[in-house]
């Protein structure tokens, strides 16, 4: 992150950074709480991902616009307040149009405020770069986050219930199929262990690619 601002940042590099090189979950290891908590079903993960994309883009634009006025010691407070405003908008929107999902996600939507990715991007990117790069960075980071969430949620949902977004993938034993659901995948243990193994895989593949 430190060398981001050393050279001029191009749009394509920003996109590449957000999606792969500094993928929020697998590269930076940020925003773990929602990653672990909302990945029981694919639908919850997607709702969470889209809310995070919205908040990231919104707060990145706002902070980029006011970056010259920011005083260093009040910086973090201004970041969190800006983010809190956008999260309130997202929360009210979900309550109005997606009441079931809003109920299911409960406190995890307001907890986006303290999601480290958003503060990290405000600090590392939006407070230093122009509006366009900040917008692209917000979008790329958000999509990267959503993709990682969906990956984890797919694994957990399929193994816990044999379904994916309501479609049956693995026929359950009780309905005449062969698959016995793994109860552990729906519990906290499934979240931690699956993410641990996925991270291990990511590290392994990165090492292999580097030769």
């Amino acid at each position, binding site marked *: 992150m430190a060398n981001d601002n050393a050279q001029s940042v191009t749009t394509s590099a920003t996109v590449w950074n957000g999606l792969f090189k500094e993928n929020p979950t697998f590269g930076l*290891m*940020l*925003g*773990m*709480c*929602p990653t*672990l*908590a909302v990945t029981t079903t694919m639908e919850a993960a997607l709702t969470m991902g889209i809310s995070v994309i919205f908040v990231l883009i919104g707060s990145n634009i706002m902070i980029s616009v006011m970056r010259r006025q920011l005083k260093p010691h009040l910086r*973090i*407070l201004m970041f*969190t*307040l800006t983010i*809190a*405003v956008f*999260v*309130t908008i997202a*929360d*009210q929107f979900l309550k109005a149009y997606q009441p079931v999902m809003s109920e299911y996600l*409960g*406190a995890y939507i*307001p*907890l986006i*405020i*303290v999601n*480290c990715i958003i*503060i990290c991007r405000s600090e590392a990117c939006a407070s230093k770069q122009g509006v366009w790069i900040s917008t692209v960075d917000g979008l790329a980071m958000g999509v990267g986050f959503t993709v990682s969430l969906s990956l984890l949620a797919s694994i957990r949902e399929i193994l816990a219930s044999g379904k994916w977004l309501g479609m049956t993938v693995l026929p359950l034993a009780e309905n005449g199929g062969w698959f016995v659901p793994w109860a*552990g995948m729906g*519990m*906290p*243990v*499934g*979240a*931690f*262990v699956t*993410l*641990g*193994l996925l*991270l*291990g*895989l990511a*590290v*392994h593949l990165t*090492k292999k690619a580097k030769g």
Partner: protein
Amino acid sequence: MDTIQMLVLGFLSIVIINNFVFTKFLGTCPYIGVSGRLDMAFGMGLAVTFVTTLSGAMTFLLDEYVLMPLHLEVTRYVCYILVIAGAVQLVEMYLRKYFPPLYDSFGIFLPLITTNCVILGICLFLDQWQTNNFLEAVNLSFGAGIGFTLAICIMAGIRENLVFADVPPCLQGAPITLITAGLLTLAFMGFAGMIK
């Protein structure tokens, strides 16, 4: 008598059974990032406990006596964040004045407590559980902080010993910590159902 029983049960339930780290995944970032040394973990846990108790009590009062009567629930999150940031600032100033060595050893982690999910989490869950008793709110906030301290200390203890283990290269660092954390949650699930 009823009050005492309720307080004790509430405290035990939030420390052991509904531990924020193990069942609600709150505070996972410092849990994975900081918990490398036992003494650091303990200090961090105590600082978080203090801030949680303070901000839990303050947001409860704010909610009950300012936001609800004035119907300003929409501004709830912004107000909560302001209260938490204020509480963290207080702890920072206090530590800098009276415990400079501890203050220096925390470094950047101290202001980052503001973004610790446990703190905002307890403020939000107090509202969601519809706690309407000040004593209970303080008790639960304190319990959440103690639960976090417990979790982060157990993890730090394990990680100090993990140094001697022969972990496959690709799993070293964060991945093995996550897997260990998963097994710990499994152990803590044994307590489930102890208190309704």
